[in-house]
């Protein structure tokens, strides 16, 4: 053993403990167990210094809380430590490839974060006089111009707050247009079996009956089935393009022609617009309405599950029915058109209290400006190239769901190649965690057995793609070689092992509750 001048060993001892080692405290070195904020004795504490009130609350006698609000307050250092420790239990795009198909986990530029925090955007009140918010309205106007130009559509409703909210907006516009034309018998919405769950959910939410359209063996909408199901009772079709199998709908022009011939509208789920932005304009495909997930195509951060933003581009036929408010340009600059004004007479209503996700508009616009028309096109090409590269590299071992022809921005595999191994798609996905990657989207789309949907995005370098493919190929070979335990017991190296989701649903514990022992929350009534 070599020693430095004070006798401190500078090389590890040869007999250092190996696997199976447990710490005394239960933590794993830097990865610490972190109690809930309710489990420390901080019920009276606070980490904010506030002045004394100007006056008391005697004027609100009988209206104030009878009992004090019982919530813990932590000092600032304790708060910072709590959340930083928790953050270390999360995977993130900034750590490694995050190939969640259909979710488009691409790099989130920090410039956009900086710009969204400029007080001129972040510290603006939605109902400030329009003379005080001309720059904000101007930004909304420019963003609209970019979205309309990129999609080849004449109008856009910015306010929807997420993709599903955008779907709702699009279908409400379609419903209003049919109502204005006296077409109230149109009560059906057609969606392919491969559609996102939000499509049928949204259609039902608006009062439509959902009818499924079949799929061909090569993963596209079955035109004959569509033609057979179109009628004067159909209000709209909802088709994702590129679709959820990661394929471009080759017959898209025929799909829109048939739909329009039947008097129905074509709602396109734009979740996968990132694959074609700058190369194909949905307006040229006959689309009547399409939401654009700014958090996907234009990279506003996913934030652990939102906030998103889902502007909807609209065709000429649907534009008059767009929800208020929207920005118009008048002699005295920009103004907001509200529902009570004549120009908005046909607006179907309002999606949200104010004007939508301004914070996301700023980020998306900065992203667009940074890329420009050429950069956005290049981003789409790189996203498609990366997905095809993964498909080519993995296809030798794993079974591609649709091996013939190129895919778009995501590569879809099924579980045929795992047959006889005793390993499921879920097991394989959990083993990816041990290799340092977030699993792909699993078991979606529903039309492919044991689906594994891999979306790398354009943000990955060739080296990272190779590292990912090498890891997956290594796992695949281990699976085929019978290393079952590596998969069925995975993950081994995550902060937690596999979680019991059945228990969570059977005895829901949705909030922490103080009990006599002071720790374990009481479960809600069992199912």
């Amino acid at each position, binding site marked *: 053993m070599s020693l430095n001048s004070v006798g401190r060993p500078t090389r590890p001892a040869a007999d250092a403990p190996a696997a199976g080692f447990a710490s005394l405290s239960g933590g794993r070195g830097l990865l610490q167990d972190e109690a809930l904020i309710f489990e420390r004795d901080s019920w009276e504490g606070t980490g904010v210094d506030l002045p004394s009130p100007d*006056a008391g609350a005697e004027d609100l006698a009988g209206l104030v809380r009878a009992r004090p609000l019982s919530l813990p307050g932590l000092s600032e250092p304790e708060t910072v430590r709590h959340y930083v420790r928790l953050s270390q239990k999360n995977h*993130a795009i900034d750590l490694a490839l995050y190939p969640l198909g259909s979710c488009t986990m691409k790099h989130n530029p920090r410039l956009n974060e900086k710009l969204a925090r400029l007080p001129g955007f972040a510290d603006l009140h939605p109902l400030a006089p329009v003379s005080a918010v001309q720059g904000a309205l101007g930004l909304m106007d420019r963003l609209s111009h970019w979205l309309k130009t990129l999609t080849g559509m004449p109008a856009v409703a910015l306010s929807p*707050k997420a993709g599903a909210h955008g779907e709702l907006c699009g279908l409400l516009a379609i419903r209003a247009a049919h109502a204005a034309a006296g077409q109230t018998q149109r009560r059906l919405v057609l969606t392919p079996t491969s559609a996102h*769950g*939000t499509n049928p959910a949204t259609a039902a939410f608006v009062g439509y009956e959902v009818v499924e359209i079949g799929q061909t063996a090569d993963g596209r909408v079955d035109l004959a089935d569509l033609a057979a199901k179109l009628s004067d009772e159909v209000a709209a079709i909802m088709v994702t393009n590129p679709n959820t199998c990661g394929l471009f709908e080759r017959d898209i022009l025929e799909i829109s022609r048939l739909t329009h011939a039947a008097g129905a509208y074509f709602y396109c789920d734009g979740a996968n617009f990132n694959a074609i932005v700058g190369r194909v304009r949905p307006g040229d495909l006959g689309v009547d309405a399409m939401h654009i997930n700014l958090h996907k195509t234009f990279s506003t951060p996913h934030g652990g599950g939102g906030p998103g933003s889902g502007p909807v581009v609209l065709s000429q036929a649907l534009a008059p029915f767009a929800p208020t408010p929207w920005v118009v340009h008048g002699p005295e600059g920009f103004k907001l058109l509200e529902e009570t004004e004549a120009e908005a007479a046909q607006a179907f209503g*309002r999606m949200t209290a104010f004007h939508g996700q301004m914070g996301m508009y700023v980020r998306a616009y900065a992203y667009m400006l940074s890329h420009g028309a050429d950069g956005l096109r290049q981003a789409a090409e790189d996203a498609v190239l990366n997905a095809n590269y993964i498909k080519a590299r993995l296809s030798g071992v794993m079974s591609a769901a649709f091996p013939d022809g190129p895919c778009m921005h995501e590569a879809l595999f099924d579980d045929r190649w795992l047959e006889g191994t005793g390993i499921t798609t879920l097991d394989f996905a959990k083993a990816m965690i041990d290799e340092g990657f977030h699993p792909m989207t699993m078991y979606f789309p529903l039309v492919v057995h044991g689906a594994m949907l891999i979306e790398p995005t354009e943000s990955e370098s060739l080296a990272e793609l190779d590292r990912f493919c090498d890891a997956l190929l290594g796992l695949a070979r281990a699976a085929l070689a019978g290393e079952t335990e590596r998969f069925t017991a995975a993950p081994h190296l995550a902060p937690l092992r596999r979680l019991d989701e059945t228990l969570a649903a059977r005895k829901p514990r949705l909030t922490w509750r103080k009990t006599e022992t002071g720790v374990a929350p009481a479960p809600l009534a069992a199912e």
Partner: protein
Amino acid sequence: MRYLPLDEADRRHMLGVIGAPDVDALFADVPAPARLSGPVDLPGYAGEIEVERELAGLAALNRPAGAGPFFCGAGAYKHHVPATVDHIIQRSEFLTSYTPYQPEIAQGTLQVLFEFQTQVAALTGMEVANASLYDGSTACAEAVMMSRRVTRRRKAVLSGGLHPHYATVTHTIATAEGMEITRRPAAVDAEADVLAAIDSDTACVVVQTPNVFGTVTDVTAIAEAAHAAGALLVVVTTEAVALGLLKSPGEMGADIAVAEGQSLGVGLNFGGPYVGLFACREKFVRQMPGRLCGETVDAEGRRGFVLTLSTREQHIRREKATSNICTNSGLCALAFSIHMTLLGGTGLRRLAEVNHGRARTLAGALAGLPGVEVLTPRFFNEVAVRVPGSAAALVEALAGEGILAGVPVSRLDPTAGMDDVLLLAATETTSAADIEALVAALSRRIR
């Protein structure tokens, strides 16, 4: 292009592995007439310097709330957000992760959601809360639709004190689903007016306190009347700080409590993103919209958290889901939760008292102005006042002097017949000097 790691050599190599002659071959499924031959008619890529210049230029054309005396509220409130909040939400692991579909590597987000749900349940006095919705207005619409699922009735009665935009959003969404919405006439102290409209077809009654005119009401009697008729009471709060001082919706008998959470941690953001708080009685949990986080154990028996009761949701139930919602407002829920953790119950109470005290100072100063009448009988941090002439014109004129003097009711609801009514809010960020400046400007304008 600074965001794209591939270079031309990489692309050539990759095309070789794929076996494609060029990238166009990968787009071969696009019908020829729909292929764009080159970039669309928009500017080319730009460096950070140029992008920052354009955006900063646009930002400079706006007048931020912090630039001078500021009194706007009406559903969006300016509060001080501790610096810690914005620092933590920009951590990569929170900012650049997604919905916790893989709980083993998302315990950070999941534990935050569990703590958030507990905080929201405590604040609203309810038993359970979800992991957030888009904002208060969409949460209000979701509550009305949930009341239909619970009661199997089709009618909803909205109070005339409900924020007009909330009422419109609810009307837009709930009528599409086939509900019948009755909106009572706008009035400053309107809540009891809903009583006469409740009948045996009523699924829910929606009341807001403090209402859009700032009026605070104990809605216990409305809860009793609603329950006697078999209807639910939905209580809306657009100013979450008020929950620190006032009786909670649960204490007053609410079945569903919804609130805008923007006041804590989130900021103004010109109207979004915000965070919708949604809480209800435990017995209705399976009819709730949105994501829910629940406690469980892992394979080694250690406590962990997962998204749960997903059989309510669109990705499992498709057209039979309780809502079409996919994401929540995760990062804003995190910001809300961090701010709430810093405040604690003690700090939120104090913050609420400071807000209320500041509003009393404001109301007293306004009441002393000739021609100005304070209309709100019981307020938290916002008052409606009658001014001589058009409130909108007055606001425009004061904006010219650098004072954002509040929100004219005509901006929210031009049909209310309240063109001379102005809403003014005061918070902990309002200084005595701000109030003096407002009063001086008003007394010059109103003669």
